[in-house]
């Protein structure tokens, strides 16, 4: 298990190994107490303990199933068809035809001409005032 074999033991390592106390004989009373305690327990349920090889096999099967399901899902998503339209196609012109009945033409020439004249008068007045103030400053 050790991938790197021990080099010749140092003096310290040898000393540690030599100084390790030996095991005493088993304490019979202590073992008896443990066995008595164990007798009161239910037996360990071996049916919940799958063989280690079975665990490995189960993991591989689960991984394979996951890969297959992923592949199937990816394939289905890639070949998925677009949704069929549930409503018939609508014509925009047919819907907007009725708007012409709502439109009421209005003549705006008179108000615009009056507004233009007002603006012109204001501009002239403003120019006159500016000229007067400017001349007043200079002279």
């Amino acid at each position, binding site marked *: 298990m050790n991938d790197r074999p021990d080099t010749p033991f140092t003096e310290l390592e040898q000393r540690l190994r030599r100084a390790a106390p030996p095991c005493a004989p088993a*304490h019979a009373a*202590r073992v008896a107490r443990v066995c008595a305690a164990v007798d009161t327990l239910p037996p360990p349920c071996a049916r919940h303990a799958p063989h280690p090889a079975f665990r490995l096999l189960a993991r591989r099967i689960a991984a394979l199933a996951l890969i297959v399901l992923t592949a199937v899902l990816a394939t289905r998503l890639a070949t998925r068809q677009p949704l069929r339209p549930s409503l018939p196609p609508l014509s925009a012109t047919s819907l907007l035809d009725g708007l012409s009945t709502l439109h009421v033409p209005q003549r705006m020439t008179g108000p615009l001409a009056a507004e233009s004249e007002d603006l012109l008068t204001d501009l002239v007045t403003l120019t006159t005032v500016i000229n007067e103030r400017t001349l007043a400053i200079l002279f």
Partner: protein
Amino acid sequence: MQRVAQGEIQAFRIVAEALEPRLERFFAQLGVPASDRDDLFQETCLRLYRAADRYDPRRPLLPWALTVARRVMLNWHRARKPTVELDEARCVADTQRPVPETGGADDVWAFARARLPAAACELLWLRYGEDLEPAEIAAVTRRTPVHVRVLLHRARAALATALEHDGTGMRPQGGER
């Protein structure tokens, strides 16, 4: 353990008899007082029994048992309240079982326990006391094998330095890494 897992409860006595001296020594070396080792051994055995169906027979039993024992001991350390050991308790414990031989005056393990941190002592004991490989120690202590090798190297170096300062030391000559 396979027989135990199959419901043969009597087979657990063989396991308990085989493990008791090793666990007793393990607990003693890691500083568990004698008055508590009985409880820790019983708790360890009960956990081993309950987990018998999860034991992998392809792996050695001792590292697995030491892993469980170490966790039981850590739980005991966490739950322990500060107490003062009575002299009478020490006498009772001494009469209950023979005292195993130690290195006597050259007890480098007692010196290591006095001078090194508990984690370093634990690693040194698992390596040189229980004779586990670094990979097995890594499984017991839940570290990587490389980490265990590094920690072992540091623990050896610290122990050698402490021994040298104490006047009984020796210089490390490389050793495993």
